[in-house]
């Protein structure tokens, strides 16, 4: 059983479309991160959300942390081919020393 469930796992859309990726769990997280990973490279941090209900924007990307701090979403507006990549959500469970656990990722392809 995955601690963090990401959906969809694969997404292929046309340039200019909008999309939303979801990250769900039954556990409460003290913080949740979204990363983007290119093939053969390490995950690159996009954003960290900490407060329940928090919304952060990064250009055309909007990240939301659920009120109960158990889920998050990533919305991309007007997707571009440069958005193609693997998007990973990762969470640090409440309490303890902040071990980060990853979801399986969403592989996004934006077709020109």
């Amino acid at each position, binding site marked *: 059983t995955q601690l963090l469930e990401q959906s969809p796992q694969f997404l292929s859309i046309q340039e200019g479309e909008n999309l939303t990726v979801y990250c769900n769990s039954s556990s409460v997280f003290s913080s949740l991160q979204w990363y983007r990973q290119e093939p053969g490279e390490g995950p690159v941090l996009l954003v960290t959300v900490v407060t329940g209900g928090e919304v952060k924007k990064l250009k055309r990307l909007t990240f939301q942390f659920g009120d109960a701090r158990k889920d998050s979403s990533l919305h991309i507006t007007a997707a571009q081919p440069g958005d193609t990549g693997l998007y990973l959500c990762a969470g640090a469970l409440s309490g303890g020393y902040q*071990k980060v656990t990853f979801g*399986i990722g969403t592989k996004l392809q934006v077709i020109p």
Partner: protein
Amino acid sequence: EPEVTQTPSHQVTQMGQEVILRCVPISNHLYFYWYRQILGQKVEFLVSFYNNEISEKSEIFDDQFSVERPDGSNFTLKIRSTKLEDSAMYFCASFGQGAAFFGQGTRLTVV
């Protein structure tokens, strides 16, 4: 901008050989991690390290694995006797400002 650096970027080794993967975490971070990612699969937690000792380790991190912070800056992962199934990308990370920051990874190929 501070970053996590890993060396080497690629290591090829024969089955049964020992390998040491090296990492320099971000200097003011206190928690350090090793993760691995087998090709096409998810990023998997191996071990966390805090205050010069292991905080937590996964089932993957068996007796063949060890970690060390020998000199206060480097953070190493040693695999004593590599197996074919150890072939993967190995990522070092350090935790600060509410998130884990990752190095570029070492691609380990066991032949």
